């Protein structure tokens, strides 16, 4: 479980996060949603320590990450898998080397065992016979899958996904969403997904946190989100025509 308490962050005096708190439970897909520029990515980067919050605490299974020393932070970080928006695959390494990288650096496994593990996670994300391909030779959806494989190869306890669907077609997006949810259940890990894609929210958002201008203004599930009376969330939720049409149909208008 991950708990955040009163996270604040400003850039050049402009507040981006204004005291965000919440809990992200193990074994479920937690989503942080909101419009662009509302502080979602900054929040997720504060949680993993890529951005240092001005104030507040982050707890990984009770361990205070913000107050940890360098070695303790390194230990916690080695339990984290992170899927970046663009995949962040290492350009100079092929798919296999990218996925194997955390094992090379963080473990002393024999090479054969590493390769077995790599093939196993690549197979789990639905990628086979691409081991020797370079990141530039695979599609955006495949890059995301490789990114997920790299994030879970070292038996991570916490999985973070920053906009996993950006730049993907709707069908591939749903496949990636379902993959993230299945992996979360299978490995019983704590997953936090940052997204502004309502399809993803409705598909996998077991716990949803809505941010608006750096504040948490709503928290719930994908089942209760459409019943909200929070104006900012409604504006965000029904900003596209499809959602408005569905609402009208639901209301029998």
């Amino acid at each position, binding site marked *: 479980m991950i708990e955040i308490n009163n996270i604040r962050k400003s850039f050049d005096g402009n507040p981006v996060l204004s005291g965000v708190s919440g809990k992200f439970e193990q074994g479920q897909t937690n989503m942080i949603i909101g419009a662009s520029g509302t502080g979602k990515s900054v929040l997720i*980067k504060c949680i*993993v*320590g*890529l951005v240092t919050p001005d104030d507040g605490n982050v707890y990984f299974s009770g361990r205070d990450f913000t107050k940890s020393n*360098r*070695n303790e*932070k*390194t*230990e*916690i*970080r*080695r339990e*984290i898998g*992170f899927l*970046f*928006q*663009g995949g*962040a*695959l*290492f*350009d100079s390494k092929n798919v296999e080397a990218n996925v194997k990288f*955390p094992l*090379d*650096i*963080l473990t002393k496994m024999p090479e054969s065992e590493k390769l077995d593990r790599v093939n196993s996670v690549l197979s789990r994300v639905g990628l086979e016979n691409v081991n020797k391909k370079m990141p530039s030779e695979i599609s955006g959806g495949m890059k995301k899958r490789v990114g997920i494989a790299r994030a879970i190869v070292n038996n991570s306890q916490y999985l*973070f996904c920053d906009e996993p669907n950006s730049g993907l077609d709707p069908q591939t997006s749903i496949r990636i969403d379902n993959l993230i949810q299945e992996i979360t259940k299978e490995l019983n890990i704590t997953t936090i997904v940052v997204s502004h894609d309502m399809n993803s929210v409705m598909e996998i958002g077991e716990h949803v946190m809505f941010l608006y201008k750096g504040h948490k203004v709503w928290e719930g599930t994908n089942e209760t989100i459409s019943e909200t009376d929070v104006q900012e969330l409604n504006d965000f939720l029904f900003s596209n025509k499809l959602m408005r049409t569905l609402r009208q149909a639901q209301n029998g208008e």
Partner: protein
Amino acid sequence: MILLLRAIGRYFIFAGSLFTNMESFRTYFKLVIDEAILIGYNSIFLVSIVSIFIGAVTAIQTAYNLVSPLIADYVISLVVRDMSILELAPTIIAVVFAGKVGSSIASGLGTMRITEQIDALEVMGINSVSYLVLPKIIGTIITFPLLVILAAFLSIWGGYIAGVFTEVITPQEYIYGIRAEFNEFTVTFALIKAFAFAIIVSSISAFKGFYTEGGALEVGKASTSAVTNSVIAILLADYLLAQLLLN
């Protein structure tokens, strides 16, 4: 001024973080070998071309300026030798090296920064400065002095080819000249400069690339800035080392 001091402070913090939270020796060993090949071996062709022509031009221009019949022809090769060892091989090659390798280091790290590859390393609990930059610096420290030795040799050889083929000097006089009044310390001095320039080029370029912010345009700017700053630092260090060690 404050910005400059801030940048210098940041540079030293960056240098300090090279040696914290390091990975295993085996990891660095492989990376250093890779970087040594990428940085050193791949620069041999350019360094060779530049050195041969610098030596050839130095020989011809020295001969052109030696108009007095009282000055022996072997002075041409003596000048080529000392110029090559003292200045042309370490300094000019360092400037060329900054253009080729410095820009490559800065743009490589800059691209890794904007595509979040550096963040990916940090999230894994890896000290990205140490993992990415230290092998580049060590690889440069190992290979650049070797390139300088090669450059000095080829520069003197280039002077020989140009001098002999244009008949401004005979082979015997040229060989006599490069052996006459030889001071071994010039080689030591050249290697000290090579060592200093290797650290300057690799660390400044890595620093500029590592802290790139923005997109592709900023990667280009970081690369240009890396070369400019490295060249200025090379010239400054060149003067300081000459003042300190040759006086």
